[in-house]
């Protein structure tokens, strides 16, 4: 033990006093730390809830549109508006493809200052591409198409599940979600080196959407993959899906950056996404995939599926009539008989012959929801709907065997459904702490799987670890299920500046994951996690206030129910439960109250009319618009914009007045709200200021303050508006 001098010899004289002082400071500081931690948790929760409910909304919308497709006659206007997003030009013949995606006649003007690519690609060119993008240059559409075609050729040769090994003491680097955040990819390459023969990489999906450089990330990843096809592996994520891209910004980004050829590029990307492998296995022991697994995940099934059939994971594969010259049968024909048989076919693909657990009910449920809406609202379709009812009833009454025999398709419907579900689970599932496997109703797709499912799966396949992404984590990574599942997320500052770190993993022959964290720092100086809480919290609360405002009518109803004396006051407890009953975000409202309700309350009662005034969002030119309509617009702005973009078939950014009206009809059916023709005319007149009969979508969204310019510019992207909206003012290089 040594010398008898005590550690606190410095404080000998005042030692007791010192100890008391120390304890005081320590407990005081620890309380502050704990409170900050609480704030951080609910801030996170706010962002995550809103993010996931956005995904759920998109899936619902897509299911709704799918239902319209299935049940409206081909000649109906509504169907025509949206049918093209379901049209899968699955032409089997290469020559047709080559003609459509031909880049050879695209000239590159002399004034173009970006990189020129020659094929086969060299590593110098790939690195050159990196540098060009770092300097904010854009790749010319000719080279984009050429690069994508080469990529597609390569992907077609890859299996559904890549199997790689850490032989020769190679460490494999694995990256999670990037979401169009080029800065993070550049940071990873800076810290870890670019892909090479000695430095293999696996990228685990979600390369696009939300961030503003999605196309650049894709081009970089594809080019390195072309240069080192045995050392760069890409897994498909749930955002490698054109339906999701419509809502979350990738579609808009490409169309803005590539005004002339954007549509073609997007079409080619649809094919490429469907050809992306589903998973990667390292040393036969570590499974890397984007979302996760379920209790029915079967790798032998997944090895054999025709993954290219799943252009969007949200829709089961089309049943193809192989008789007609290899062309898709999804051609609009004014033929009711044809549409009848088509209904049978689609019905068959979506109904489940065996009563399987809750997950099937979940999918069926969304269909049933819409049938009443559609019947109730489309009055001029009454005759048609009557006919439809008869048809549907007939279809439902038939036995499964009858339906199958009506189809000429050779694909077994059981297998098709099982395959589809497996792929959906792979791309959309999240782990949970409880045992079991339940549908992921928060996101709207895939499932929640428990530690028992992990254990069972790993044992069955003789593996030891699952590496997945799909969920943002504050530290960029998180272990769960007894360290058998690792979540990896590579987009730092995802929710907001300072919200989270990104991480990547290195795996050597010992298969022990070594995690490296980072945070892209162009906008941050070094902050502790707790310091950045304040900033992120303010951001989250702002978004939350907007959400609350968007639900004003429902909230008012809920408050009035409790406020029996009609005094305009509710207690804190009642306020909290009313808000939760409307918002369904499962947030600690009581704790948030002092941040959300700043108007003074008397005796702990909240004056809710005052509160609504506090929250109100006022826009220019909106005073003459009905307030409840404005609220509807605001609440569903992402859905509205998505529908606009779907309707805008030539991707010009403009839709005609007539289509504009049809959009509203669609929306009113979807939302079960009455939006009168008069309302629509008023709106249209406000927007179509030059009276040329067409509406500028972006102008419309901005006119109603449906997008918040300020926050966009601050951040360079706006997740909650679900568009990469700082690009509206980025005209795009006409030379590109």
């Amino acid at each position, binding site marked *: 033990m040594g010398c008898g001098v005590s550690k*606190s010899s410095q404080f000998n004289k005042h030692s007791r006093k*010192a100890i008391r002082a*120390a304890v005081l*400071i320590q407990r005081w500081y*620890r309380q502050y730390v704990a*409170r900050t931690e609480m704030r951080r*948790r609910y801030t996170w929760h706010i962002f995550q809830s809103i993010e996931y409910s956005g995904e759920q909304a998109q899936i619902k919308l897509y299911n709704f549109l799918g239902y319209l497709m299935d049940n409206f006659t081909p000649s109906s206007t509504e169907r025509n508006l949206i049918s093209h997003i379901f049209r899968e030009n699955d032409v089997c013949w290469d020559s047709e493809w080559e003609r459509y995606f031909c880049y050879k006649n695209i000239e590159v003007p002399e004034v173009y200052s970006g990189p020129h690519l020659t094929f086969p690609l060299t590593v110098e060119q790939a690195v050159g591409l990196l540098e060009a993008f770092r300097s904010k240059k854009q790749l010319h559409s000719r080279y984009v198409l050429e690069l994508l075609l080469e990529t597609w050729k390569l992907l077609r040769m890859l299996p559904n599940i890549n199997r790689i090994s850490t032989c020769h003491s190679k460490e494999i680097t694995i990256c999670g979600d990037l979401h169009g955040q080029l800065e993070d990819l550049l940071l990873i390459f800076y810290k870890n080196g670019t892909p090479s023969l000695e430095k293999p990489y696996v990228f685990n999906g979600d390369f696009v959407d939300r961030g503003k450089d999605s196309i650049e990330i894709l081009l970089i990843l594809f080019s390195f993959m072309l240069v080192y096809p045995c050392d760069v592996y890409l897994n498909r994520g749930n955002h490698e899906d054109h339906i999701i891209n419509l809502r979350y910004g990738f579609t808009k980004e490409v169309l803005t950056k590539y005004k002339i050829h954007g549509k073609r590029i997007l079409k080619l990307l649809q094919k490429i996404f469907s050809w992306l492998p589903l998973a990667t296995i390292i040393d036969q022991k570590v499974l890397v995939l984007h979302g996760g697994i379920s209790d029915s995940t079967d790798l032998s099934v997944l090895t054999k599926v025709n993954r290219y059939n799943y252009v969007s994971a949200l829709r089961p594969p089309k049943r193809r009539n192989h008789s007609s010259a290899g062309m898709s049968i999804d051609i609009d024909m004014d033929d009711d008989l044809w549409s009848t048989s088509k209904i049978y076919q689609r019905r068959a693909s979506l109904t489940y012959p065996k009563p399987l657990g809750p997950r099937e009910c979940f999918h069926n449920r969304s269909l049933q929801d819409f049938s009443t809406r559609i019947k109730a609202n489309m009055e001029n379709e009454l005759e048609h709907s009557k006919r439809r009812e008869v048809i549907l009833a007939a279809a439902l009454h038939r036995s499964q065997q009858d339906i199958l025999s009506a189809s000429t398709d050779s694909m077994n419907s059981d297998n098709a459904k099982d395959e589809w579900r497996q792929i959906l689970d792979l791309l959309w599932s999240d782990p949970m702490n409880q045992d079991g496997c339940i549908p992921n109703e928060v996101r709207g797709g895939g499932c929640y799987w428990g530690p028992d499912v992990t254990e069972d799966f790993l044992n069955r396949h003789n593996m030891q670890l699952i590496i997945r992404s799909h969920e943002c984590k504050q530290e960029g990574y998180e272990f769960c299920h007894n360290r058998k599942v690792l979540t990896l997320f590579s987009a730092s500052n995802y929710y907001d500046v300072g919200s989270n770190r990104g991480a990547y993993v290195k795996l050597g022959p010992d298969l022990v994951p070594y995690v490296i964290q980072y945070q892209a720092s162009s906008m941050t100086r070094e902050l502790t996690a707790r310091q950045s809480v304040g900033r992120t919290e303010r951001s989250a609360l702002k978004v939350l206030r907007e959400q609350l405002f968007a639900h004003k009518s429902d909230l008012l109803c809920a408050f009035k129910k409790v406020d029996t004396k009609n005094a305009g006051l509710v207690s804190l407890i009642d306020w909290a439960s009313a808000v939760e009953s409307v918002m369904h975000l499962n947030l600690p409202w*009581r*704790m948030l109250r002092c941040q959300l309700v700043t108007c003074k309350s008397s005796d702990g009662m909240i004056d809710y009319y005052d509160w609504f005034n506090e929250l109100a969002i006022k826009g220019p030119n909106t005073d003459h618009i009905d307030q409840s309509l404005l609220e509807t617009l605001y609440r569903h702005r992402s859905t509205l914009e998505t529908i606009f973009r779907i309707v805008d078939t030539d991707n010009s950014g403009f839709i005609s007045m007539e289509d504009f009206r049809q959009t509203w009809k669609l929306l009113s059916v979807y939302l079960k709200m009455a939006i009168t023709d008069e309302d629509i005319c008023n709106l249209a007149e406000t927007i179509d200021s030059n009276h040329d009969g067409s509406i500028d979508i972006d102008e419309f969204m901005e006119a109603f303050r449906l997008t918040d310019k300020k926050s966009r510019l601050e951040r360079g992207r706006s997740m909650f508006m679900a568009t990469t909206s700082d690009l509206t003012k980025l005209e795009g290089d006409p030379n590109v």
Partner: protein
Amino acid sequence: MAEDKESGENENILAIHRKITAAFEPFDYESKNTVDVREIGTIMYSLDCFPTQADIREFIAEVEENSSGTVHLDRFMPAMTKVLLENKFPPIPRSKIFQAFKVLDKEQRGFVEPEELTKFMMEEGEPFTQEEMDEMLTAHTNRKENVIYYDKLINKLTADAPK
């Protein structure tokens, strides 16, 4: 009237129960009305209490389920209600913290140096872990002068305090 007083008290207790439940819930990850014992400190702090580590340990000993590492709401509720009714761990007045820092700042310079503070916080009382210490220093050291102005620190942290 005695009855009124009693019903007033009951209402008060009801309000306290709700408050405790609201603080407990965010940590009940499996919806089983249990939380990990390591979260108890945070929960108590979030209820505007300022216990020492010793206080927390004592409290846990009372409410933990047979060293299972978990605490059930059934046991947490009565114990925490008592704490709140008795105001057992009240907030620390600003002046007292100030005095505490002054003990360290013998020369009354108005600031302390990181090394001094580190030694103090990590060796005396209920020592900070390295992580806690690093966090405090990173967050609150004046970068230019490399010292910690404790009155600024106190103002900042008490501004965040519950009202």
